C-alpha cells in the first residue's frame, strides 16, 4: 500500500471532480461554511468549500478561524456527520390508507437519487462502516439505508489538520483512510499551490479519475502527502487511554462513583448522540390525518438521554442522569463490541466539542481507569 502510485489533482482537478460527479447524476455533498461552522451540505462548486478556514476545538468549544493559507480541507470535523444523509433524521417507513374495502399499508419506496460525499474523513469512513454493521449486517437490513449506502460515492480526505478534540489515532481509526472509499485525497502545498494526492479505492473511483485532468505524483509529492498524514497522527488533541482495555474496564465498573460525578455535570441534552457519527438509535411516531382515514409511521433519530427512551409501562428503566450517561458511554466503548463486534466510537471528538458543559469521553475513561476497582484490588 505504501508503494502505491499516487496521482495528483490540482485545485482545478478538484473542481473537475465536483463537475464529473454532478454529471453522473450524483447529489454532491461536502463541507461548507454556514452558521459559523463547517457543515455538510449540497455543494456545486469549489467556492462552496471552506477554503482558507479551519476550526478550533476543545471541550465544549468550537470556533471557526481563518487560516494563514488557502487550504481546502484544513479543518477537522464539524457538528454534522454523513449519517444525516445515509441514516435519515426522519424516515417515513410506511403509510396507511383506510377505505371502504379496508386498510392498506403502503411501504415507503426507497429513495433513488445517488449521493456523492466529498471530504469524508477516516474516522467517518469507520463510522459509516460501523453503521453498516448495525443497519445492514443483521437479519433484517434497513432498505432505505441500503439503497442510499450502495449508491453513494465516497471521496475521502486524509486528515492533515487534526482538531483539539480528535483522538482517532488512539482508536486506530485514522488519520489515514485505509479503505472503504472510492477516491481518497491528501492535500499538500507545493510551489505555492494546493495539490491533492489521489488514492483509488474502487473501480468506480478509478473510472472517475480517468475523466479528470491528473498526472502521476512525483516521489517528492508522495512523500509530502505521507508526511502530512504522519504529522497529523502526532498532533491529536486527545487520546483514548489504553483503548483495547476499555471494554473490559467499563464492564467491571458499572457502579463506579465517577458516573455520579459526571451526572452532576451532564445536562442529558443528548447533543453528544446527535453529533455522534455512529449513534443510530431511533424512535417511531404515528401521525394520523384528522379524519382518521390515513396515517404515516415515521422513524426519527432518538437519544438514550431522554427518559422516554427506556420507558416500560409505568416508568423509565434509566430514570437517573447517571444511568443514562453510563448507558451512552458504555454502549459506545464496551457493549457495542458485544452487540455488533466493533467499537461504537471512532475518536472524532464531536461529543467533546459539542457538549455544552464540555464532558470529555477520554477524560471520563481516564478517571475510571485511574480508580479501577479491579486494578486497585489486584494491587492492594
Amino acid at each position, binding site marked *: 500500500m505504501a508503494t502505491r502510485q499516487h496521482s495528483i489533482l490540482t485545485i482545478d482537478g478538484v473542481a473537475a471532480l465536483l463537475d464529473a460527479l454532478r454529471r453522473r447524476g450524483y447529489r454532491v455533498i461536502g463541507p461548507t461554511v454556514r452558521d459559523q461552522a463547517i457543515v455538510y451540505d449540497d455543494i456545486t462548486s469549489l467556492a462552496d468549500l471552506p477554503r482558507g478556514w479551519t476550526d478550533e476545538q476543545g471541550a465544549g468549544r468550537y470556533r471557526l478561524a481563518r487560516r494563514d493559507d488557502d487550504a481546502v480541507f484544513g479543518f477537522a470535523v464539524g457538528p454534522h456527520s454523513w449519517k444525516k444523509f445515509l441514516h435519515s433524521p426522519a424516515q417515513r417507513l410506511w403509510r396507511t390508507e383506510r377505505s371502504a374495502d379496508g386498510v392498506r399499508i403502503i411501504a415507503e419506496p426507497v429513495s433513488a437519487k445517488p449521493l456523492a460525499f466529498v471530504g469524508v474523513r477516516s474516522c467517518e469512513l469507520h463510522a459509516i462502516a460501523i453503521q453498516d454493521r448495525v443497519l445492514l449486517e*443483521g*437479519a*433484517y*437490513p434497513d432498505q432505505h439505508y441500503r439503497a442510499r449506502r450502495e449508491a453513494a460515492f465516497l471521496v475521502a480526505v486524509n486528515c492533515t489538520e487534526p482538531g483539539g478534540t480528535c483522538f482517532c489515532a488512539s482508536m486506530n481509526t485514522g488519520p489515514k483512510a485505509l479503505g472503504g472509499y472510492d477516491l481518497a485525497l491528501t492535500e499538500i502545498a507545493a510551489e505555492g499551490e494546493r495539490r491533492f494526492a489521489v488514492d483509488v479505492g474502487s473501480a468506480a473511483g478509478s473510472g472517475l479519475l480517468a475523466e479528470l485532468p491528473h498526472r502521476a505524483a512525483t516521489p517528492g509529492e508522495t512523500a509530502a502527502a505521507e508526511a502530512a498524514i504522519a504529522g497529523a497522527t502526532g498532533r491529536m488533541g486527545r487520546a483514548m487511554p489504553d483503548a483495547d482495555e476499555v471494554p473490559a474496564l467499563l464492564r467491571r465498573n458499572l457502579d463506579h462513583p465517577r458516573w455520579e460525578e459526571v451526572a452532576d455535570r451532564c445536562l442529558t441534552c443528548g447533543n453528544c448522540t446527535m453529533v455522534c457519527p455512529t449513534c443510530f438509535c431511533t424512535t*417511531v411516531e404515528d401521525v*394520523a390525518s384528522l379524519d382518521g382515514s390515513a*396515517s404515516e409511521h415515521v422513524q426519527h433519530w432518538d437519544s*438514550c438521554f431522554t427518559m422516554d427512551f427506556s420507558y*416500560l409501562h409505568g416508568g423509565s428503566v434509566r*430514570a437517573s442522569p447517571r444511568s443514562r450517561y453510563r448507558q451512552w458511554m458504555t454502549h459506545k466503548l464496551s457493549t457495542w463490541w458485544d452487540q455488533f463486534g466493533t467499537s461504537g466510537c471512532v475518536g472524532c471528538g464531536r461529543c467533546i466539542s459539542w457538549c455544552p458543559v464540555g464532558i470529555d469521553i477520554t477524560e471520563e475513561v481516564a478517571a475510571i481507569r485511574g480508580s479501577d476497582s479491579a486494578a486497585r484490588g489486584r494491587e492492594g
Partner: protein
Amino acid sequence: MARVPEAASVPIVARVRARRRETHDTWTLSIEAGEFAFEPGQFNMLYAFGIGEIPVSLSGDPGAPGPLIHTVRAVGSASQAITRLRPGDPIGLRGPFGTAWPVDESTGSDVLVIGGGLGLAPLRPAIYRLLAERDRYGQIAVLYGTRSPADILYRREIERWRRRLDTAVEVTVDHADAGWHGHVGVVTRLIDRAAFDPDHAVALVCGPEIMMRFAANTLQAAAIAPERIYVAMERNMKCAIGQCGHCQFGPTLVCRDGAVMRYDRVRPLLTVREL
C-alpha cells in the same frame, strides 16, 4: 419460516377474529394472519393504525393451524386501541421475532414452567408443545402465580391442564378472600412442592423482573444450575429488528438476543440498577 426482510419491517394487514376478556385490563385476541410459523417464546409487533406498535408475545399453540393468539394488557395508547378491536377489524402485524424457549432441547429433562401474572402468556406456547409431546419429558410442573383470583389468565385452560394426571399444575395468588380455596402466597413457594430431579431439570421462567429474580434464587436453592434456568426479558422496543437501540439490556438487544435468555448469562446484569 424465513421471512423476507420487507415483511419484518413493514406490517401486513391481518384481521381480528375474536376477542375475549381475561381480566379487568387484559384481553385475548385471535388474529387471522394466514400461514404463520413461530416458536414458543417469540413475539409479534402488533400495530394499531395511526397510533403505534407494541411487542406482544405469541400465546397460541405453535403446532395448531388457525388464528394467532395474543394476550394484551391495556396500559398505553396502542395497547388500549388494540384491546378495543372487534371481530372483523383490521390490525397490522409483523413478526415473529426473538428467541424461543428451549422446549425441544429439554427432551429427557424434567421441566418446570413458572409464570407470574401476564408472564403466563409467553409460556403458553411452550406448555402446549410440552403437553403435545408429553412422553418426551420427565416430570412437568406448571407453576403460576398472580395477584388475585380475578387476575388469573386462561382460567378454563388451566383447569383442563389440572385434570391431567401426568402434569402438576399449581396456581397461587398473592392476595385472596375466603372465596378462594387455592394456594395463597408467592409463586416461588410452589417450587419446593414440585417434583423434579435438579440435575436433570430445566426451568422456564416468565413474569415481572423481580419475580424472575426471586424465582431464580429459589431454583438455585433447589440445586438447579443457572444454565438450566431461562428467563424472558422485557424492555422498551420500537423496531424489533435490532436497529432502534431501545431494547438494550447491557450487552444484549432484547429483541434479537431475547426475549428468552439463559439466566447464567444475564444474572450479572439483573442486579445492575437502571441498566
